[in-house]
Protein backbone atom coordinates (compact mmCIF):
# COMPACT_ATOMS: atom_id res chain seq x y z
CA UNK A 1 0.00 0.00 0.00
CA UNK A 2 2.74 2.49 -0.99
CA UNK A 3 0.14 5.07 -1.88
CA UNK A 4 -1.14 5.29 1.70
CA UNK A 5 2.41 5.31 3.12
CA UNK A 6 3.46 8.07 0.71
CA UNK A 7 0.47 10.12 1.77
CA UNK A 8 1.33 9.61 5.46
CA UNK A 9 5.01 10.48 4.92
CA UNK A 10 4.19 13.67 3.03
CA UNK A 11 1.51 14.61 5.58
CA UNK A 12 3.98 14.13 8.45
CA UNK A 13 6.60 16.24 6.69
CA UNK A 14 3.95 18.93 6.29
CA UNK A 15 3.04 18.55 9.99
CA UNK A 16 6.61 19.62 10.83
CA UNK A 17 6.13 22.56 8.47
CA UNK A 18 2.72 23.23 10.02
CA UNK A 19 4.36 23.46 13.45
CA UNK A 20 6.93 25.84 12.02
CA UNK A 21 4.32 28.07 10.34
CA UNK A 22 2.03 27.91 13.37
CA UNK A 23 4.83 29.08 15.65
CA UNK A 24 5.50 32.09 13.44
CA UNK A 25 2.04 33.04 12.14
CA UNK A 26 -0.25 31.60 14.80
CA UNK A 27 1.60 32.09 18.06
CA UNK A 28 4.04 34.96 17.55
CA UNK A 29 1.74 36.63 15.02
CA UNK A 30 4.31 37.35 12.26
CA UNK A 31 2.53 36.93 8.90
CA UNK A 32 4.78 34.81 6.70
CA UNK A 33 4.33 33.49 3.16
CA UNK A 34 8.00 32.56 2.87
CA UNK A 35 8.14 29.38 4.97
CA UNK A 36 8.33 27.23 1.81
CA UNK A 37 11.54 29.07 0.88
CA UNK A 38 13.12 28.07 4.23
CA UNK A 39 11.80 24.53 3.69
CA UNK A 40 13.53 24.59 0.28
CA UNK A 41 16.84 25.72 1.74
CA UNK A 42 16.72 22.82 4.21
CA UNK A 43 16.07 20.40 1.35
CA UNK A 44 18.85 21.78 -0.88
CA UNK A 45 21.42 21.87 1.97
CA UNK A 46 20.81 18.24 2.92
CA UNK A 47 20.83 17.20 -0.74
CA UNK A 48 24.14 19.00 -1.25
CA UNK A 49 25.84 17.56 1.80
CA UNK A 50 24.74 14.01 1.02
CA UNK A 51 25.80 14.25 -2.64
CA UNK A 52 29.10 16.04 -1.96
CA UNK A 53 32.51 14.63 -2.91
CA UNK A 54 32.94 13.02 0.54
CA UNK A 55 29.24 12.71 1.43
CA UNK A 56 28.00 13.31 4.97
CA UNK A 57 25.54 10.85 6.41
CA UNK A 58 21.91 11.82 6.97
CA UNK A 59 21.84 12.96 10.62
CA UNK A 60 24.81 15.40 10.43
CA UNK A 61 23.45 16.84 7.15
CA UNK A 62 20.07 17.30 8.82
CA UNK A 63 21.63 19.09 11.80
CA UNK A 64 23.59 21.44 9.52
CA UNK A 65 20.50 22.08 7.39
CA UNK A 66 18.44 22.86 10.51
CA UNK A 67 21.16 25.29 11.65
CA UNK A 68 21.14 27.04 8.25
CA UNK A 69 17.37 27.36 8.39
CA UNK A 70 17.53 28.70 11.95
CA UNK A 71 19.86 31.45 10.79
CA UNK A 72 17.78 32.11 7.64
CA UNK A 73 14.50 32.26 9.56
CA UNK A 74 15.92 34.75 12.05
CA UNK A 75 17.15 36.88 9.13
CA UNK A 76 13.76 36.61 7.41
CA UNK A 77 11.74 37.59 10.51
CA UNK A 78 13.99 40.47 11.60
CA UNK A 79 12.38 42.92 9.13
CA UNK A 80 9.02 42.07 10.70
CA UNK A 81 10.30 43.66 13.91
CA UNK A 82 10.99 46.92 12.11
CA UNK A 83 8.10 46.90 9.69
CA UNK A 84 4.45 46.95 10.75
CA UNK A 85 2.01 44.15 9.90
CA UNK A 86 0.80 44.82 6.39
CA UNK A 87 4.10 46.03 5.01
CA UNK A 88 5.62 42.77 6.15
CA UNK A 89 3.05 40.91 4.03
CA UNK A 90 4.69 42.32 0.92
CA UNK A 91 8.23 41.84 2.29
CA UNK A 92 7.34 38.23 2.96
CA UNK A 93 5.98 37.79 -0.59
CA UNK A 94 9.18 39.45 -1.82
CA UNK A 95 11.44 37.11 0.16
CA UNK A 96 9.58 34.07 -1.19
CA UNK A 97 9.83 35.26 -4.82
CA UNK A 98 13.53 36.15 -4.36
CA UNK A 99 14.21 32.67 -2.96
CA UNK A 100 12.41 31.04 -5.91
CA UNK A 101 14.45 33.18 -8.33
CA UNK A 102 17.65 32.01 -6.60
CA UNK A 103 16.54 28.34 -6.64
CA UNK A 104 15.86 28.59 -10.40
CA UNK A 105 18.87 30.64 -11.48
CA UNK A 106 21.75 29.53 -9.26
CA UNK A 107 22.22 26.39 -11.39
CA UNK A 108 25.62 25.56 -9.80
CA UNK A 109 24.12 25.39 -6.30
CA UNK A 110 20.61 24.10 -6.83
CA UNK A 111 20.70 22.46 -10.23
CA UNK A 112 18.45 25.31 -11.37
CA UNK A 113 15.06 24.62 -12.93
CA UNK A 114 16.17 21.08 -13.86
CA UNK A 115 16.20 20.28 -10.16
CA UNK A 116 18.57 18.01 -8.31
CA UNK A 117 18.03 14.30 -9.07
CA UNK A 118 19.63 11.28 -7.42
CA UNK A 119 19.58 12.33 -3.76
CA UNK A 120 20.70 9.22 -1.78
CA UNK A 121 18.29 7.68 0.71
CA UNK A 122 18.97 8.49 4.37
CA UNK A 123 20.87 6.18 6.72
CA UNK A 124 19.93 6.41 10.37
CA UNK A 125 22.30 4.72 12.88
CA UNK A 126 23.59 2.46 10.12
CA UNK A 127 20.12 1.35 8.96
CA UNK A 128 19.56 2.53 5.40
CA UNK A 129 15.97 3.67 4.85
CA UNK A 130 14.84 2.29 1.50
CA UNK A 131 11.21 1.23 1.37
CA UNK A 132 8.27 3.51 2.01
CA UNK A 133 7.35 1.55 5.14
CA UNK A 134 10.73 2.37 6.70
CA UNK A 135 10.16 5.96 5.68
CA UNK A 136 6.87 6.06 7.48
CA UNK A 137 8.64 4.99 10.67
CA UNK A 138 11.38 7.63 10.24
CA UNK A 139 8.90 10.42 9.52
CA UNK A 140 6.55 9.36 12.29
CA UNK A 141 9.48 9.52 14.73
CA UNK A 142 10.60 12.90 13.42
CA UNK A 143 7.14 14.45 13.49
CA UNK A 144 6.43 12.94 16.91
CA UNK A 145 9.62 14.58 18.26
CA UNK A 146 8.54 17.83 16.63
CA UNK A 147 5.09 17.66 18.22
CA UNK A 148 6.62 16.80 21.61
CA UNK A 149 8.96 19.80 21.41
CA UNK A 150 6.05 22.06 20.42
CA UNK A 151 3.90 20.70 23.27
CA UNK A 152 6.74 21.16 25.79
CA UNK A 153 7.43 24.79 24.87
CA UNK A 154 3.73 25.64 24.94
CA UNK A 155 3.50 24.29 28.48
CA UNK A 156 6.72 25.98 29.58
CA UNK A 157 7.09 29.66 30.52
CA UNK A 158 8.34 30.25 26.94
CA UNK A 159 4.92 29.32 25.55
CA UNK A 160 3.12 31.57 28.01
CA UNK A 161 5.52 34.40 27.10
CA UNK A 162 4.80 33.94 23.36
CA UNK A 163 1.03 33.96 23.94
CA UNK A 164 1.35 37.14 26.04
CA UNK A 165 3.50 38.82 23.34
CA UNK A 166 0.81 38.08 20.80
CA UNK A 167 -1.75 39.89 22.94
CA UNK A 168 0.25 42.94 24.06
CA UNK A 169 3.97 43.38 23.44
CA UNK A 170 4.20 46.63 25.44
CA UNK A 171 2.77 45.01 28.56
CA UNK A 172 5.25 42.13 28.26
CA UNK A 173 8.16 44.61 27.98
CA UNK A 174 6.76 46.52 30.97
CA UNK A 175 6.82 43.24 32.92
CA UNK A 176 10.59 43.07 32.35
CA UNK A 177 10.78 40.51 29.52
CA UNK A 178 12.97 40.82 26.40
CA UNK A 179 10.34 40.68 23.65
CA UNK A 180 12.87 40.73 20.79
CA UNK A 181 14.82 37.75 22.14
CA UNK A 182 11.61 35.73 22.61
CA UNK A 183 10.45 36.42 19.04
CA UNK A 184 13.86 35.60 17.56
CA UNK A 185 14.09 32.30 19.46
CA UNK A 186 10.59 31.37 18.24
CA UNK A 187 11.71 32.14 14.68
CA UNK A 188 14.83 30.04 15.25
CA UNK A 189 12.78 27.07 16.42
CA UNK A 190 10.45 27.47 13.45
CA UNK A 191 13.56 27.41 11.23
CA UNK A 192 14.79 24.19 12.83
CA UNK A 193 11.44 22.50 12.15
CA UNK A 194 11.41 23.70 8.54
CA UNK A 195 15.02 22.58 7.97
CA UNK A 196 14.35 19.09 9.31
CA UNK A 197 11.23 18.81 7.15
CA UNK A 198 13.33 19.90 4.14
CA UNK A 199 15.89 17.17 4.76
CA UNK A 200 13.26 14.45 5.09
CA UNK A 201 11.46 15.68 1.94
CA UNK A 202 14.62 15.74 -0.20
CA UNK A 203 15.75 12.25 0.74
CA UNK A 204 12.25 10.77 0.47
CA UNK A 205 11.63 12.09 -3.07
CA UNK A 206 15.30 11.65 -4.13
CA UNK A 207 14.62 14.62 -6.47
CA UNK A 208 13.84 18.27 -5.67
CA UNK A 209 13.17 21.25 -7.93
CA UNK A 210 12.22 24.88 -7.28
CA UNK A 211 8.52 24.31 -7.95
CA UNK A 212 7.94 22.40 -4.69
CA UNK A 213 9.13 25.45 -2.72
CA UNK A 214 7.37 28.29 -4.58
CA UNK A 215 4.71 30.78 -3.55
CA UNK A 216 1.90 28.23 -3.99
CA UNK A 217 3.61 25.93 -1.47
CA UNK A 218 3.85 28.78 1.07
CA UNK A 219 0.19 29.64 0.57
CA UNK A 220 -0.71 25.96 0.97
CA UNK A 221 1.19 25.91 4.30
CA UNK A 222 -0.60 29.01 5.50
CA UNK A 223 -3.96 27.50 4.50
CA UNK A 224 -3.12 24.27 6.31
CA UNK A 225 -2.70 25.96 9.66
CA UNK A 226 -5.68 28.23 9.08
CA UNK A 227 -8.04 25.41 8.10
CA UNK A 228 -6.50 22.96 10.57
CA UNK A 229 -6.53 25.51 13.35
CA UNK A 230 -4.13 28.23 14.37
CA UNK A 231 -1.98 28.36 17.48
CA UNK A 232 -2.56 24.77 18.58
CA UNK A 233 -0.74 21.47 18.24
CA UNK A 234 -3.95 19.76 17.05
CA UNK A 235 -4.39 22.38 14.34
CA UNK A 236 -0.87 21.80 13.02
CA UNK A 237 -1.62 18.08 12.68
CA UNK A 238 -5.22 18.19 11.37
CA UNK A 239 -4.44 20.82 8.72
CA UNK A 240 -1.74 18.95 6.75
CA UNK A 241 -3.48 15.54 6.88
CA UNK A 242 -6.78 17.07 5.72
CA UNK A 243 -5.45 19.32 2.98
CA UNK A 244 -3.12 16.69 1.52
CA UNK A 245 -6.03 14.23 1.40
CA UNK A 246 -8.29 16.72 -0.35
CA UNK A 247 -6.78 16.48 -3.89
CA UNK A 248 -6.87 12.66 -3.69
CA UNK A 249 -10.47 12.58 -2.46
CA UNK A 250 -11.57 15.04 -5.11
CA UNK A 251 -10.13 12.90 -7.91
CA UNK A 252 -12.46 10.09 -6.80
CA UNK A 253 -15.35 12.42 -7.63
CA UNK A 254 -15.42 11.89 -11.42
CA UNK A 255 -15.57 15.38 -12.86
CA UNK A 256 -14.63 15.44 -16.60
CA UNK A 257 -10.82 15.39 -16.59
CA UNK A 258 -10.46 18.48 -18.76
CA UNK A 259 -11.85 20.78 -16.07
CA UNK A 260 -11.24 18.45 -13.09
CA UNK A 261 -7.97 20.10 -12.21
CA UNK A 262 -9.23 23.69 -12.37
CA UNK A 263 -12.40 22.59 -10.52
CA UNK A 264 -10.26 21.19 -7.69
CA UNK A 265 -8.34 24.44 -7.23
CA UNK A 266 -11.73 26.21 -7.36
CA UNK A 267 -13.06 24.07 -4.49
CA UNK A 268 -9.83 24.83 -2.62
CA UNK A 269 -10.55 28.56 -2.95
CA UNK A 270 -14.16 28.15 -1.87
CA UNK A 271 -13.02 26.18 1.21
CA UNK A 272 -10.72 29.04 2.15
CA UNK A 273 -13.50 31.61 1.91
CA UNK A 274 -15.97 29.39 3.78
CA UNK A 275 -13.57 28.76 6.68
CA UNK A 276 -12.66 32.42 6.99
CA UNK A 277 -16.30 33.44 7.03
CA UNK A 278 -17.77 30.82 9.28
CA UNK A 279 -14.92 29.24 11.26
CA UNK A 280 -11.84 31.45 11.37
CA UNK A 281 -10.36 29.42 14.19
CA UNK A 282 -10.23 26.44 11.88
CA UNK A 283 -11.17 22.89 12.87
CA UNK A 284 -9.04 22.56 16.00
CA UNK A 285 -7.55 25.96 16.74
CA UNK A 286 -8.08 29.25 18.50
CA UNK A 287 -9.19 32.48 16.89
CA UNK A 288 -6.51 33.89 14.62
Amino acid at each position, binding site marked *: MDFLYTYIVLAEIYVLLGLSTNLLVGIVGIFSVSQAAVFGVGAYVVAHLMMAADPLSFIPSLVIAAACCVALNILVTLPSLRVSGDYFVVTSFGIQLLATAVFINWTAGTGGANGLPGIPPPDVFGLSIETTQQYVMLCTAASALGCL*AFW*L*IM*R*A*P*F*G*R*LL*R*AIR*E*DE*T*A*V*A*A*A*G*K*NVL*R*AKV*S*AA*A*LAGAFAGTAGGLYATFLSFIDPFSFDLDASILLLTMIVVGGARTLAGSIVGPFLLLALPQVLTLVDIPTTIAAAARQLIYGLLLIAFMLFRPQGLAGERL
Partner: protein
Amino acid sequence: MNAYMQVSGLDHRFGGLHALQDCSFTIEHGRITCLVGPNGAGKTTIFNVITGFLQPDEGSVAFRDRRLDGLRPQAIVHAGIARTFQNLRLFADLTALDNVMIGIAGQFGEEPIGAIFRPLHTARAQKRRRHEALGTLDHVGLADRAHDVVRNLSYGEQKLLTVARVLATGAELLLLDEPASGLSTGALDAVMALLRRLQGDGKTLLVVEHNTRVVQQIADEVLFLHQGHLMAQGTPERIISDPALAEIYFGGAL
Protein backbone atom coordinates in the same frame (compact mmCIF):
# COMPACT_ATOMS: atom_id res chain seq x y z
CA MET B 1 23.43 60.59 49.78
CA ASN B 2 21.15 61.85 47.03
CA ALA B 3 17.42 61.23 46.94
CA TYR B 4 16.08 57.67 46.47
CA MET B 5 14.79 58.61 42.98
CA GLN B 6 15.76 61.89 41.28
CA VAL B 7 14.11 63.31 38.12
CA SER B 8 15.85 66.44 36.88
CA GLY B 9 15.24 68.87 33.99
CA LEU B 10 12.84 66.70 31.96
CA ASP B 11 11.80 68.40 28.73
CA HIS B 12 9.92 66.80 25.81
CA ARG B 13 7.88 67.92 22.83
CA PHE B 14 5.36 65.86 20.79
CA GLY B 15 5.35 67.91 17.54
CA GLY B 16 3.69 71.20 18.66
CA LEU B 17 2.69 69.98 22.16
CA HIS B 18 5.27 70.84 24.84
CA ALA B 19 4.45 67.84 27.04
CA LEU B 20 7.20 68.24 29.68
CA GLN B 21 8.76 71.62 30.53
CA ASP B 22 11.92 71.47 32.74
CA CYS B 23 10.21 69.10 35.21
CA SER B 24 12.21 68.04 38.27
CA PHE B 25 11.28 66.28 41.51
CA THR B 26 12.53 63.69 44.02
CA ILE B 27 10.93 60.61 45.62
CA GLU B 28 11.77 59.47 49.17
CA HIS B 29 12.23 55.77 49.96
CA GLY B 30 9.29 54.07 51.70
CA ARG B 31 6.82 56.91 51.10
CA ILE B 32 3.63 57.07 48.98
CA THR B 33 3.88 60.02 46.62
CA CYS B 34 0.87 61.09 44.59
CA LEU B 35 1.16 62.83 41.24
CA VAL B 36 -1.88 65.04 40.66
CA GLY B 37 -2.83 67.61 38.02
CA PRO B 38 -5.43 68.32 35.33
CA ASN B 39 -5.71 66.01 32.31
CA GLY B 40 -2.86 66.40 29.87
CA ALA B 41 -0.52 67.71 32.54
CA GLY B 42 2.11 65.13 31.50
CA LYS B 43 1.61 62.57 34.27
CA THR B 44 1.60 59.50 32.01
CA THR B 45 4.41 61.01 29.94
CA ILE B 46 6.57 61.11 33.06
CA PHE B 47 5.76 57.43 33.70
CA ASN B 48 6.77 56.59 30.13
CA VAL B 49 10.07 58.46 30.54
CA ILE B 50 10.98 56.85 33.90
CA THR B 51 10.19 53.32 32.63
CA GLY B 52 12.18 53.75 29.40
CA PHE B 53 9.25 53.69 26.95
CA LEU B 54 10.01 57.29 25.93
CA GLN B 55 13.44 58.94 25.49
CA PRO B 56 12.99 62.57 26.65
CA ASP B 57 14.42 65.44 24.54
CA GLU B 58 16.36 66.58 27.64
CA GLY B 59 16.70 65.70 31.31
CA SER B 60 17.74 62.63 33.26
CA VAL B 61 16.38 60.07 35.70
CA ALA B 62 18.50 58.64 38.51
CA PHE B 63 17.49 55.76 40.81
CA ARG B 64 19.69 54.94 43.81
CA ASP B 65 22.51 56.98 42.24
CA ARG B 66 22.27 55.07 38.93
CA ARG B 67 21.39 56.85 35.67
CA LEU B 68 18.36 55.15 34.03
CA ASP B 69 17.72 57.25 30.95
CA GLY B 70 18.68 55.39 27.79
CA LEU B 71 18.00 51.92 29.26
CA ARG B 72 15.38 49.67 27.64
CA PRO B 73 12.16 48.95 29.62
CA GLN B 74 13.18 45.45 30.69
CA ALA B 75 16.54 46.74 32.06
CA ILE B 76 14.71 49.35 34.16
CA VAL B 77 12.41 46.65 35.57
CA HIS B 78 15.47 44.65 36.59
CA ALA B 79 16.85 47.84 38.21
CA GLY B 80 13.75 47.77 40.48
CA ILE B 81 11.11 50.08 38.92
CA ALA B 82 7.87 48.61 37.49
CA ARG B 83 4.63 50.25 36.35
CA THR B 84 0.96 49.61 35.66
CA PHE B 85 -1.06 51.18 32.86
CA GLN B 86 -4.11 53.42 32.95
CA ASN B 87 -5.87 51.04 30.53
CA LEU B 88 -4.66 47.99 32.52
CA ARG B 89 -3.18 46.13 29.49
CA LEU B 90 -3.79 42.73 31.06
CA PHE B 91 -3.60 39.55 28.92
CA ALA B 92 -7.33 38.98 28.52
CA ASP B 93 -7.10 35.40 27.22
CA LEU B 94 -4.68 34.21 29.93
CA THR B 95 -5.62 33.26 33.51
CA ALA B 96 -4.97 35.59 36.46
CA LEU B 97 -2.17 33.28 37.57
CA ASP B 98 -0.54 33.37 34.14
CA ASN B 99 -0.75 37.18 34.09
CA VAL B 100 1.16 37.34 37.37
CA MET B 101 3.70 34.70 36.29
CA ILE B 102 4.59 36.81 33.24
CA GLY B 103 5.94 39.37 35.71
CA ILE B 104 8.22 36.90 37.52
CA ALA B 105 11.83 37.48 36.41
CA GLY B 106 14.42 34.86 35.42
CA GLN B 107 12.24 31.77 35.10
CA PHE B 108 13.87 28.59 33.82
CA GLY B 109 12.33 27.46 30.53
CA GLU B 110 11.74 30.91 29.14
CA GLU B 111 13.65 29.99 26.02
CA PRO B 112 13.21 26.94 23.79
CA ILE B 113 16.49 25.12 24.53
CA GLY B 114 15.77 24.80 28.24
CA ALA B 115 12.08 24.11 27.70
CA ILE B 116 12.73 21.24 25.27
CA PHE B 117 15.89 19.57 26.58
CA ARG B 118 15.28 19.87 30.33
CA PRO B 119 11.53 19.45 30.61
CA LEU B 120 11.56 18.00 34.16
CA HIS B 121 13.70 20.84 35.51
CA THR B 122 11.39 23.31 33.76
CA ALA B 123 8.32 21.68 35.32
CA ARG B 124 9.85 21.72 38.81
CA ALA B 125 10.97 25.36 38.52
CA GLN B 126 7.54 26.29 37.19
CA LYS B 127 5.80 24.65 40.16
CA ARG B 128 7.89 26.79 42.55
CA ARG B 129 7.13 29.95 40.53
CA ARG B 130 3.42 29.03 40.46
CA HIS B 131 3.46 28.76 44.24
CA GLU B 132 5.18 32.15 44.45
CA ALA B 133 2.59 33.73 42.12
CA LEU B 134 -0.26 32.28 44.18
CA GLY B 135 1.29 34.01 47.19
CA THR B 136 1.30 37.35 45.37
CA LEU B 137 -2.31 36.84 44.30
CA ASP B 138 -3.24 36.03 47.89
CA HIS B 139 -1.42 39.19 49.00
CA VAL B 140 -3.74 41.29 46.84
CA GLY B 141 -6.79 39.18 47.79
CA LEU B 142 -7.30 37.35 44.50
CA ALA B 143 -6.20 33.85 45.54
CA ASP B 144 -9.63 32.33 44.77
CA ARG B 145 -9.65 33.77 41.20
CA ALA B 146 -6.21 32.38 40.25
CA HIS B 147 -7.39 30.04 37.48
CA ASP B 148 -10.09 32.30 36.01
CA VAL B 149 -9.42 33.92 32.66
CA VAL B 150 -8.96 37.67 33.04
CA ARG B 151 -11.89 38.29 30.69
CA ASN B 152 -14.22 36.91 33.38
CA LEU B 153 -12.84 39.04 36.26
CA SER B 154 -14.67 42.17 37.51
CA TYR B 155 -13.08 45.58 36.84
CA GLY B 156 -12.09 45.90 40.50
CA GLU B 157 -10.44 42.47 40.47
CA GLN B 158 -8.60 43.37 37.27
CA LYS B 159 -7.26 46.52 38.95
CA LEU B 160 -5.93 44.42 41.82
CA LEU B 161 -4.41 42.01 39.30
CA THR B 162 -2.39 44.82 37.66
CA VAL B 163 -0.85 45.53 41.06
CA ALA B 164 -0.19 41.79 41.59
CA ARG B 165 1.62 41.62 38.24
CA VAL B 166 3.81 44.60 39.16
CA LEU B 167 4.57 43.04 42.56
CA ALA B 168 5.64 39.79 40.87
CA THR B 169 8.57 41.61 39.21
CA GLY B 170 10.02 42.14 42.68
CA ALA B 171 10.47 45.87 42.01
CA GLU B 172 10.87 48.22 45.02
CA LEU B 173 9.52 51.39 43.35
CA LEU B 174 5.99 50.84 41.94
CA LEU B 175 4.51 53.36 39.50
CA LEU B 176 0.71 52.96 39.67
CA ASP B 177 -1.34 54.73 37.00
CA GLU B 178 -4.78 55.56 38.55
CA PRO B 179 -5.14 52.35 40.61
CA ALA B 180 -8.39 53.57 42.20
CA SER B 181 -10.25 55.20 39.31
CA GLY B 182 -13.64 53.79 38.27
CA LEU B 183 -14.05 51.62 41.38
CA SER B 184 -17.10 51.16 43.64
CA THR B 185 -16.58 52.23 47.26
CA GLY B 186 -16.07 48.58 48.41
CA ALA B 187 -13.38 47.92 45.80
CA LEU B 188 -11.89 51.36 46.46
CA ASP B 189 -11.34 50.59 50.13
CA ALA B 190 -9.73 47.23 49.20
CA VAL B 191 -7.25 48.97 46.87
CA MET B 192 -6.39 51.67 49.42
CA ALA B 193 -5.84 49.03 52.11
CA LEU B 194 -3.55 47.16 49.67
CA LEU B 195 -1.47 50.28 48.94
CA ARG B 196 -0.93 50.85 52.66
CA ARG B 197 0.05 47.17 53.07
CA LEU B 198 2.60 47.54 50.26
CA GLN B 199 4.11 50.56 52.04
CA GLY B 200 4.26 48.38 55.14
CA ASP B 201 6.23 45.79 53.13
CA GLY B 202 8.85 48.47 52.41
CA LYS B 203 7.72 49.37 48.88
CA THR B 204 7.87 52.94 47.59
CA LEU B 205 4.86 54.06 45.53
CA LEU B 206 4.45 56.82 42.96
CA VAL B 207 0.73 57.00 42.23
CA VAL B 208 -1.13 59.01 39.60
CA GLU B 209 -4.56 59.67 41.10
CA HIS B 210 -7.51 62.05 40.51
CA ASN B 211 -9.69 61.16 43.49
CA THR B 212 -8.79 63.80 46.10
CA ARG B 213 -10.34 61.70 48.94
CA VAL B 214 -7.93 58.83 48.03
CA VAL B 215 -4.99 61.28 47.79
CA GLN B 216 -5.76 62.67 51.25
CA GLN B 217 -6.01 59.20 52.82
CA ILE B 218 -2.90 57.52 51.40
CA ALA B 219 -0.45 60.19 50.20
CA ASP B 220 2.58 61.13 52.32
CA GLU B 221 3.65 63.65 49.68
CA VAL B 222 1.82 65.28 46.73
CA LEU B 223 3.36 66.63 43.52
CA PHE B 224 1.13 69.04 41.59
CA LEU B 225 1.87 68.98 37.88
CA HIS B 226 0.51 71.49 35.37
CA GLN B 227 1.38 71.79 31.65
CA GLY B 228 4.38 69.54 32.09
CA HIS B 229 5.88 71.53 34.93
CA LEU B 230 6.01 70.87 38.68
CA MET B 231 3.93 73.67 40.22
CA ALA B 232 4.09 72.59 43.87
CA GLN B 233 5.26 69.82 46.21
CA GLY B 234 4.06 69.20 49.79
CA THR B 235 1.70 67.42 52.16
CA PRO B 236 -1.79 66.60 50.86
CA GLU B 237 -3.45 69.14 53.17
CA ARG B 238 -1.26 71.99 51.95
CA ILE B 239 -1.66 71.20 48.25
CA ILE B 240 -5.40 70.56 48.31
CA SER B 241 -6.23 73.63 50.41
CA ASP B 242 -4.11 75.98 48.22
CA PRO B 243 -6.70 78.19 46.36
CA ALA B 244 -4.42 78.90 43.38
CA LEU B 245 -3.92 75.19 42.64
CA ALA B 246 -7.63 74.46 43.15
CA GLU B 247 -8.37 77.17 40.58
CA ILE B 248 -6.21 75.36 38.02
CA TYR B 249 -7.43 71.91 38.93
CA PHE B 250 -11.16 72.42 39.42
CA GLY B 251 -11.74 75.82 37.95
CA GLY B 252 -13.41 76.92 41.23
CA ALA B 253 -13.62 76.34 44.98
CA LEU B 254 -13.07 72.83 46.22
